[in-house]
């Protein structure tokens, strides 16, 4: 990869609780949640819809506060009840519905970060972006607008837009949610290939168990709201991975494990009649 790689990215989530207070009715979204993510680890959080996974990710990104507990990045507090660090390019989010700026071309989207941070001039940023796009196999769409390319392409570009900033942490909130199975497979492999080149600490939220096992080093199963860590499953497939891991015996075994854990929670959520909360 063309960018310098900075180290770090160890995340520590300690006893985090988040209480929402819409219209005076207190809602406990996350309850005493603790989670360690090592430097360069790919951590996938799965859980029923509306269990509070996104709440955790948003706190980490700096979009909102927490009620108690502490989140640190490389030992530095980034979210406590008193303080939420501003969102920054060391923790970049890839959003559920995609957030490429439609008014900029693919290339301009990629150079956005380096330019606004003042790290590079326009020319240098464009050069680096073209290099990165070529490396990721996206060179042919550099001068297109997001409206002109497919959703699978958009996701790839969005991942590239995050990677050029060399973030410590990549936060992905159900990024491949609304995709058909084939496109999804392609984009998942794209993400793995990109991360094979530059290891990043990743927090990935999904409710697709296959996706979780294929991508993650660690799958964290959350309980239904309020979110607690119910079970952590280590996924020990070697990297680089290809889609072939999906047909191994070990894969089926792990899948059964995760499925058992999630199914129980899904039933609880279903019985409680929880409204789906994106």
């Amino acid at each position, binding site marked *: 990869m063309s960018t310098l790689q900075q180290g770090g990215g160890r995340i520590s989530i300690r006893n985090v609780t988040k209480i929402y207070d819409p219209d005076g009715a207190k809602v406990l979204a996350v309850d005493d949640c603790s989670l360690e993510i090592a430097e360069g680890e790919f951590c996938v959080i799965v859980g029923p819809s509306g269990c509070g996974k996104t709440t955790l990710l948003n706190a980490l*990104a*700096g*979009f909102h506060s927490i009620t108690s507990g502490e989140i640190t990045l490389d030992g530095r507090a980034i979210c406590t009840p008193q303080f939420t660090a*501003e*969102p*920054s*390019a060391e*923790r*970049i*989010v890839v*959003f559920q*519905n*995609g*957030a490429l*700026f*439609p*008014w*900029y071309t693919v290339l301009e989207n990629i150079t*956005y*970060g380096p330019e*606004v*941070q003042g790290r590079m001039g326009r020319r240098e940023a464009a050069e680096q972006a073209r290099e990165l796009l*070529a*490396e990721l*196999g996206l*060179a*042919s769409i550099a*001068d*297109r*607008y*997001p*409206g*002109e*390319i*497919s959703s699978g392409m958009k996701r790839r570009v969005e991942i590239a*837009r995050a990677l050029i*900033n060399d973030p410590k942490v990549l936060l992905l909130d159900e990024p491949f949610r609304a995709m058909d199975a084939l496109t999804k497979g392609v984009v998942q492999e794209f993400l793995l290939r990109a991360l094979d080149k530059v290891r990043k600490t990743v927090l990935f939220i999904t409710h697709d168990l296959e996706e979780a096992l294929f991508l993650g080093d660690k799958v964290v199963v959350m309980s239904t709201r309020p979110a607690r860590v119910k079970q952590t499953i280590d996924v020990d497939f070697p990297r680089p991975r290809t889609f072939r891991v999906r047909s191994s015996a070990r894969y089926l075994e792990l899948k059964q494990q995760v499925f058992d854990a999630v199914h129980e929670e899904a039933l609880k959520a279903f019985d409680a009649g929880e409204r789906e909360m994106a």
Partner: protein
Amino acid sequence: MSGAVLTAKQRSAAADDPRAYGGFAYRLKRTLTSPAPYLGIAGIVGFILFWYLTTEYFKLPRFNKLPGPIEVWTEFTSHDPIYGTSMYTPQYYWHIITSSLRVLVAFALATVLGVPLGLFMGWKRTFRDYTFPIIEVLRPIPVLAWVPLAILMMPGREAPIIFLAFLAAFFATTLNAMLGVESIDESYFRAARCLGSSSWKIFKRVVVPGALPDIFTGLQIGMGVAWFSLVAAEMVSGEHGLGFLIWDSYVLSQYPVIVIAMITLGIVGYVYSALIRVVGRMLMVWTTRVQS
């Protein structure tokens, strides 16, 4: 990746694709081969025919007082017009220029003041809370109701007229710019913050381009209502201009001139709106280049 070779090839392939770069010639050809322009012409012909039949051929009651298309056309193309206004008389153009200048000044003011104000209202919640209620109360007041105050407040003859045209356009440009900012998806703001944007960079690179489609809608509406109010204002207190010409001709019973001035207003207004659309399309290539 096989890198540069593939890239160059694909880029030139994209340049050959007329749809991707939507050239003017291509668009013109597509328009001329579709039925739309011909249907439009047929509609106009039908309308003129109706006008002719009711006023000049059958001379229906109430319609027989109106000037018909032939009478209007004869007057308009006459070197020696009966009522002194035709395409060969300089004062016809003088009226157009006077009205145009007034509208352009009013429109420019409404853009320069209204768009930034609206953007700021959409962007900063507190500022919006201060300003929105007052604008919402002032906006429904018809422009004609402002005429006395405009004359009292503004010096001279030109200023009140321009003020009235400005006022109408101002609400349109302001509110549409505000709505434009409000329509920007929250995730773009979040993405911009993640990527390390300062507040000013967010304004420049997210708020302005994101609101641009609505800003241009506002400019088009603004241009329309500026003409509308201008003519009303000129009827009340003008010495020149197309609105004045209409009123003056009415008072002097020069009916064909009224129609000449009305059609001129329609055409000039259309041209200005079309200009705004063209500028908008040039600034927002991304809205026209979408995947088909």
